[in-house]
């Protein structure tokens, strides 16, 4: 149908009339956002033509005979508008503004969608995750990410437990996570995707493989950037939620702006708590009796509680002459996490091992558009403070999965001979870090077509470790490593052929300095002196992202980057505690990343809206860093080195978004990939323990005026599918016994509903996670929570 329409459009465009002119102009929304995807219909005597506005709300209609026309503007989200215009010049400009339909929730949704679509068509392989809907539901930030195409999270248990993020198959140190462009490592684990509620987040940008210059870090496989709330309108939001496993969560955020002076106060806070005492069972969930005889049981996790508290307070000026935003403030956070087991679930659960972390940081934000001259924008975002982490494992008392003390083969209660819950021995390790990070950017718009951006990120970590379970003498001789990174990037953005072609070319320059302080005795052994070793390394990377709109609804996107991962301090200097020695000549890992995508849409037909996007990707890492040989157990010391090894991730992902009449939404996405390593002997092996095929789908349906007038009920359904994968490399075609290494196929379904009360100040949400109580695993043997219920009450007020 649509193609017919396009065809007609072209056909009509090529018709020649005696005296013709052009209509062009820009359509805005009442909130000043450009109105994209608006149907512009020009009707006259024997004349009919329609076009759709582009991402900037602009439209252009050529070769129209001089006459008087009625022009209609309508879209799914605005009130229809009709104006009458007489065309009597070669070019006639029509600028208009449309009223949004009166629904507050959708209003926000639509505006953010505009920005989202803009980002998603710049050429990068990027997904913008909206948090608006999630923030009123019982949805964690991590769950939002996990339902995004190409993103896979692997969590070692319930709320607050360790998570590994994977983008298109690459994970771990290959992926960088930022908060407002500042590496999240600066904030520490207490202020993380585990603890920050979606209501504090404006949106989340997921860049796959190719990371724009303004977000520079040494990430090989992509970046996740959490954009915190940026608005400058006075508002207040608060929510409380309670649910299964004694999970209680509260969050609040608000902003107050004095209209006259522009003085602004912003505050937000969160509190999360869960016992995580969900039920698990399996071959290692046993109670042991005399002689070690085992009985399989279903157990509740009993040492898995999580608590996190945090907040941010900022004040300054917004929307004043000298600054769009100038804010200073503090960020504080604190968390506590009990650890139930190690990387695997064994027959010996932990009780008494826990982690604590806290951070206190001062922050500064300065944003100004048209600084000094028009088109010159600057932004500065800085953090300075300290963060601490404690690993506490000092009790040797053995517990059974029943939660009671365990008995040994004779029937006596006992303690582990290694003196702690983990087999690695007792620890009370304090890791204190002083952290600083500052990110600054300057950009200049020469005109609508050309823009130049210069960015710089500095981050420094000054780390000190002390283990209270280890003597001071040993602590004294523990080496310390400080790491300083400076990353410069220069980007050029091109916008040509009426917005059809967009390109972003960037270069990144990485400078890394590692300082290693190794204490030694002076010659007479009376004093400890510090031997300092220093390593300075510089590397360059570059990339290109481009998009071309072949048709208004058909955009091709391609991007590539030579990405760099700098060697870590341990890889450069080794760690005698781990029996690794220094390798001062180690090189970074380099990856050549490619994305090629097509975006169809948005197609609007009557009340239907459809967007389909696909992306083909490839990541090619070389000079992989690893150990010489993982071989001889009796070898005393090993060294990190670059190997002639390559890792390749290739795959396809696709997403379909469908909306109907603004009250039905359907999203479906899938990701399929292969991850291989070519080892030093030139043999290609499939990398095991990698989820290769995932599907996610979500359905939203909204009903107005249920129970009360002007109320709204939203119903949600989400499903997550992950195909079976093996912890070990694929076995032969006829082998048996490999099933015990399989992470089984999973199909988890969630249901939720939210009810917006008539005045829209209160929203009540109810969610059921894992409705059918399926056994869920992200990692071998580590079971995740079963069916769970949550209820949440939100209060928000936007007008004082």
């Amino acid at each position, binding site marked *: 149908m649509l193609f017919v329409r396009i065809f007609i459009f072209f056909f009509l465009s090529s018709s020649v009339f005696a005296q013709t002119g052009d209509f062009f102009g820009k359509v805005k929304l009442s909130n000043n956002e450009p109105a994209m995807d608006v149907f512009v219909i020009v009707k006259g005597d024997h004349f009919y033509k329609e076009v759709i506005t582009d991402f900037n709300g602009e439209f252009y209609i050529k070769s129209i005979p001089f006459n008087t026309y009625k022009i209609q503007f309508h879209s799914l989200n605005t009130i229809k508008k009709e104006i009458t215009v007489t065309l009597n010049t070669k070019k006639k400009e029509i600028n208009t503004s449309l009223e949004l339909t009166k629904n507050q929730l959708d209003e926000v949704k639509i505006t953010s969608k505009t920005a989202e679509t803009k980002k998603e068509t710049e050429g990068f392989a990027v997904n913008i995750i909206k948090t608006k809907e999630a923030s009123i539901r019982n949805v964690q930030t991590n769950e939002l990410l996990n339902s995004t195409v190409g993103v896979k999270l692997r969590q070692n248990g319930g709320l607050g437990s360790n998570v590994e993020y994977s983008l298109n198959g690459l994970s771990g140190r290959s992926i960088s996570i930022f908060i407002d462009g500042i590496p999240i490592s600066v904030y520490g684990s207490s202020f993380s995707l585990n603890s920050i509620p979606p209501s504090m987040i404006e949106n989340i940008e997921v860049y796959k493989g190719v990371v724009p210059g303004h977000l520079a870090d040494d990430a090989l496989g992509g970046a996740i950037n959490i954009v915190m709330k940026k608005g400058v309108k006075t508002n207040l939001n608060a929510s409380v939620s309670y649910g299964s496993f004694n999970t209680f969560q509260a969050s609040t955020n608000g902003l107050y702006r004095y209209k006259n002076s522009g003085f602004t106060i912003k505050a937000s806070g969160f509190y999360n708590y869960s016992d995580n005492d969900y039920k698990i069972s399996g*071959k290692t969930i*046993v109670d*042991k009796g005399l*002689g*070690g*005889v*085992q009985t399989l049981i279903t157990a509740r996790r009993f040492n898995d509680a999580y608590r996190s508290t945090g907040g941010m307070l900022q004040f300054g000026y917004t929307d004043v002459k000298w600054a769009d935003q100038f804010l200073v403030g503090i960020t504080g956070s604190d968390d506590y996490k009990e650890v139930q087991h190690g990387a*695997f679930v*064994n*027959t*010996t659960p932990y009780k008494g091992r826990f982690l604590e972390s806290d951070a206190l940081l001062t922050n500064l934000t300065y944003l100004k558009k048209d600084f000094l001259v028009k088109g010159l924008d600057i932004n500065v975002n800085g953090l300075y403070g300290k963060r601490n982490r404690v690993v506490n494992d000092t009790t040797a008392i053995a517990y059974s999965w029943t939660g009671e003390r365990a008995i*040994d*083969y004779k029937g006596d209660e*006992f303690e*582990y*001979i*290694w*003196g702690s819950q983990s*087999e690695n021995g007792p620890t009370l390790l304090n890791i204190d870090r002083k952290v600083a990070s500052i990110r600054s950017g300057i950009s200049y718009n020469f005109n609508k077509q050309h823009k130049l951006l210069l960015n710089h990120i500095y981050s420094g970590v000054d780390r000190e470790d002390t283990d209270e379970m280890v*003597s*001071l*003498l*040993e602590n*004294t*001789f523990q080496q310390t490593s400080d790491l300083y990174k400076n990353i410069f990037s220069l980007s050029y953005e091109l916008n040509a052929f009426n917005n059809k072609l967009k390109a972003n070319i960037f270069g990144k320059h990485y400078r890394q300095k590692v300082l290693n302080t190794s204490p*030694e*005795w002076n010659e007479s*052994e*009376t*004093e*400890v002196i510090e031997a300092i070793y220093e390593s300075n390394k510089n590397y360059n990377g570059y990339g290109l992202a481009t998009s071309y709109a072949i048709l208004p609804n058909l955009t091709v996107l391609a991007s590539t980057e030579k990405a760099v991962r700098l060697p870590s301090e341990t890889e450069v200097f080794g760690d*005698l505690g781990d029996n690794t020695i220094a390798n001062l000549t180690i090189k970074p890992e380099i990856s050549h990343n490619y994305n090629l995508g097509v975006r169809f849409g948005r197609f609007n037909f009557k009340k239907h809206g459809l967007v389909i996007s696909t992306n083909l990707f490839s990541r090619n890492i070389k000079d992989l860093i690893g150990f010489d*040989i*993982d*071989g001889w157990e*009796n070898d*005393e*010391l090993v060294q990190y080195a670059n190997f002639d090894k390559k890792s390749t991730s290739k795959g396809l992902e696709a997403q379909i978004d469908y909306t109907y009449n603004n009250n039905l939404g359907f999203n479906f996405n899938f990701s399929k990939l292969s991850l291989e*390593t070519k*080892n*030093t*002997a030139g*043999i290609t*092996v499939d*990398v*095991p323990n990698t989820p290769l095929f995932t599907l996610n789908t979500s359905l939203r349906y909204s009903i107005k005026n249920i129970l009360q007038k002007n109320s709204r009920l939203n119903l949600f359904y989400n499903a997550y599918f992950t195909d079976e994968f093996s*912890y*070990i*490399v694929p*076995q*032969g*075609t*006829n*082998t*048996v*016994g*490999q099933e*015990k*290494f399989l992470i089984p196929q999973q199909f988890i379904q969630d249901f939720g509903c939210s009810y917006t009360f008539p005045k829209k100040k209160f929203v009540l949400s109810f969610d059921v996670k894992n409705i059918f109580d399926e056994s869920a695993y992200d990692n071998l*043997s580590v079971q995740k929570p079963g069916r769970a219920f949550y209820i949440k009450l939100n209060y928000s007020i936007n007008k004082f």
Partner: protein
Amino acid sequence: MKQTILNYKALAFVLAFGLLNACSDDVNDDTIDPETPVEDSRWITIAGAKMGDEPGDGNGGTLIYAVTSEDAKDPTISINPFENGFVAPSNRTARLQASEDGSTIFNISYAGDTGGIYTKYTVEGGQTFTQTGTEVSISEYVGTAPRWIKLFDGDQTGSAVYVSTEHQIDDNDTPDDATDDTYLRTSATIGIVTLDLVNSSIKNFQSYEVPLSDEEEANGYYISRIDMPTLNAAGDKLYIGARLSKVDPATVESDSDYEILGSKTIVVDYPSLLNATVITSSVGHGNTNGYRSINAFEYNGSVYQANQSDPEGSYILKIDADNQYDDSYDFNLDDALGVTGAYILAWRPAANGKGVLAYRHDGSQEGLAGRGESFFALVDLNAKTATKIEEIPYDVDMEMFQYQGFAVDGNEIYFTAASVGQNGNIYVIDTETGVVTKGAELENAEGSHFIGAW
């Protein structure tokens, strides 16, 4: 040719089937070779360690496959555990043990979720290993990556050991000032567990500190790893192999270049597992904890123990019935083989005191996996001789890393020899005559290796 192999396979299958049904009447007598009576046959279980991400690392799973001893000796038979085997439950290379008659395989998972869990299987031929008895875990006593072996007491007992160490410092009553702190010693607390292999239950567990001499401790020496518990001939003592490490007493940092002390063994009472003493050899100077395969064997009233990382090349040391090293027994592999830096990777004597030994030495070329070409030798504990077995087609990529299994059937010893990623064969040596028989072909998988026959 293909047809022939298939026929032999079919024969093997029927033969195996026949064994299982030895008492039943429906055995087709026509298919049993009358010259090899079924009663003399036993199972030979072959294990392969699949490549994880680098050739020869063995981290991709341990696969086992059983054939009859006749088939094991038959070079026209071809065996492919990597395609047709049973994947043993162990995250890293499993440490397997077999009953003396080869009919049962014992396994304790090494690392991972099932780490420390004991399972046993009845060998039924091919990939069929039927789990019998209940599971029991020793992880609470010796951790999830236990160092265990089966004792030679008629397949009754397995034993696993563990050591944890702690550096002890005198802070001179000034806990905040490190400059007057002095290193005292490093304590080594050992744990020993014995496991009833028949009834799948824990028999005994003891844990205590094992000190070295005051002088050794003052210099920073300590027992950092123990392994390979072995029963003496009287069955009243257990010998446990040990590795020593050393710290610099001034900084408590690991030392790497230091004087290697005489080889040490911890001797404890059996079955009480108490009263530990440490005995020291004046002949050998390396570690006695071995690697994956059993490192010490009882023969003719004494226990013969290999050492590793000896500056003079590996020795086979002798511990007499008085539970002391016999320092008059000097069996140095460098001397016996005429090489330097001999390193015993795995070995096993038959009941006649003659056995097979896998070794590499300083002159070994580095192969695909970078661990040095390995060789086999026939050793004689009485004559103190070692002769390289020349019948095996050595190759730079043939390395016996993680090698652990020699199946002993009378005077005959079965073992596997294959280069990493290449096909190889089972070999059978008659230790009395030295005659080597090339047995069944072993089909390999890319980057993988064979780790023994049981």
